[in-house]
């Protein structure tokens, strides 16, 4: 038979557990409510742009809360062809592609030299590259315009590619160097024992090992350079050469009353990086956190 004190204790413990259980559920509900509300804050503007990209002006003004009844896919065509976003999309592909390829080629080389090789002025060189992460792109803007003009590069794709490479290099070199520092020395010794030269060691051993890091660097720079706006604003004159963000800005001026195509243009400019993000979410999150803590 269970004595009185034990019974009380058991009942007390039972009610305590129950209360805790309730508190847990309440806590969870609150937690999901807060996170859900924040998700709404993040997603609603994007959702709203998506919905409006399929409306005509009448629906846009008269039924602000409803879904598009007859989705107007022509809005996208109008933005792409009429707003000449197709052209800018291609320009962005060329600029981003060539910049990222160049960075992916030369950043590992410099990163390897800084991590594994001894040469004069190595430390100052490292700090010089590092300084690139802390300087605002706007600072050197005026001399950059002057430089591009005197090189005769204004309105060519190089006027964006070269500064994009220069400003993308510091973080990329920093990430590559961190990777190469971590390769054990014993691998160098083994490679030497097999009779590999220094150059072969880089091209045949170290570089292939670094492919995942090179990929992260490339993905990250793809997002940054695709979204780059400031250089494109001051270094490009001809609308034929605009990249996406710049074209979007102009689009706003000319299509200010055509809300469907305007919203479609926003979606078209954002879709490539969103796709890249959904495919490489973890890499981008890790890389951007690293990039941010190093770069701002």
């Amino acid at each position: 038979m269970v004595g009185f004190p034990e019974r009380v204790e058991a009942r007390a413990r039972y009610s305590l557990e129950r209360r805790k259980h309730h508190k847990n559920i309440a806590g969870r509900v609150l937690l999901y409510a807060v996170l859900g509300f924040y998700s709404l804050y993040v997603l609603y503007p994007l959702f709203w742009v998506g919905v409006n990209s399929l409306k005509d002006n009448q629906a846009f003004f008269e039924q602000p809360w409803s879904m598009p009844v007859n989705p107007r896919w022509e809005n996208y065509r109008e933005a792409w062809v009429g707003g000449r976003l197709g052209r800018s999309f291609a320009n962005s592909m060329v600029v981003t592609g060539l910049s990222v390829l160049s960075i992916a080629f030369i950043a590992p080389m410099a990163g390897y030299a800084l991590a594994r090789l001894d040469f004069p002025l190595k430390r100052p060189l490292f700090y010089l590259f590092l300084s690139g992460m802390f300087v605002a792109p706007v600072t050197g803007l005026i001399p950059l315009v002057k430089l591009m003009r005197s090189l005769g590069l204004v309105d060519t794709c190089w006027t964006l590619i070269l500064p994009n490479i220069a400003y993308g290099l510091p973080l990329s070199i920093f990430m590559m160097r961190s990777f190469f520092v971590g390769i054990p020395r014993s691998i160098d010794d083994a490679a030497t024992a097999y009779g590999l030269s220094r150059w072969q060691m880089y091209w045949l051993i170290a570089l292939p090992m670094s492919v995942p890091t090179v990929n992260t660097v490339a993905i990250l720079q793809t997002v940054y350079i695709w979204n780059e706006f400031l250089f494109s604003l001051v270094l490009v004159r001809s609308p034929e050469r605009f990249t996406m963000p710049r074209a979007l800005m102009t689009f706003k001026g000319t299509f200010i009353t055509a809300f469907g195509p305007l919203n479609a243009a926003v979606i078209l400019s954002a879709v490539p990086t969103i796709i890249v993000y959904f495919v490489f979410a973890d890499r981008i999150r890790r890389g951007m956190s690293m990039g941010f803590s190093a770069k701002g």
Partner: protein
Amino acid sequence: MIGLHDLKRKRDSESLMGVALAAPALLVFLVFFVYPNLEVAYLSLFNWAGISKLKTFVGLDNYAELIFRDEVFRKAIVNTAVIALQSIVIQIPAALAISVALNRRLALGRLFMTIFFLPTVISLVATGMIWSLMYDPSFGSINLLLGVLGLERLQPAWLGDPSTALLAVIITINWVYVGLYAVILSSALKTIPQSVFDSAKVDGLSEFATTVRITAPMLREVIAVLVVMSVSGSFKSFDLIWSMTGGGPVNSTEIVTTHLYKMAFRYMRSGYASAIGVCIFLICLAITAVQLKAMKVRAAGRREG
């Protein structure tokens, strides 16, 4: 036996390869980063319209005007400081709260993380346009929503009104960065052992008390980095405000970078704008120096501990 000669030759070949591998990156970096950032200091000493060949040397006059006579620059510094300050007192605590919530191994944790980070990958120009449409007084969702909630009196012109424009811009800035900070903080949170939180619970600490008194102090290194980075980020940012307000109305959202841009490319005062550039450079340098010092202190502390 390896002779001294061989050793020297070996070292020479290593140096040669190091220089050769670093050379392409160095070349591009020197020409398109280092050179412009040095030349700006030289150009800041001139009265120069940018396009013309004609430059007049004016010494430090540009700086004197900037510091003593430029009201807009003063306004821009104040606005930039407000944005930096709010990132410390609003963004980072909000991000910390979200990261603590995400640390609870929720079933939908990864989904939330994916959503919160999403704005970070969208171009700031597109973000600015999305929010400009949202803020529009006649058809924007925000005022429509306020209307539905019966708050018709509380329907400001947002970006069109100098008294609300900065607030509106800040709401958008937070939309972009809180998620990024939350992701950074939650990856740092994962390094704190669960036993710490368990013992806090045993000691009867509430969730809030645990976050404020235990979690935040344990993350102070990461938080310090975020503080420094968001402050220097405020002095570097341009795209978002440019696409939302262009610094207006009546300079109410002017920041140092938009002021520089207007001086150089709208008012054709490239020498003067270069002086602004030098100021931004010096501010970023000072912030970085503080950060490097903090990191050094941290590294020293780690060695002792």
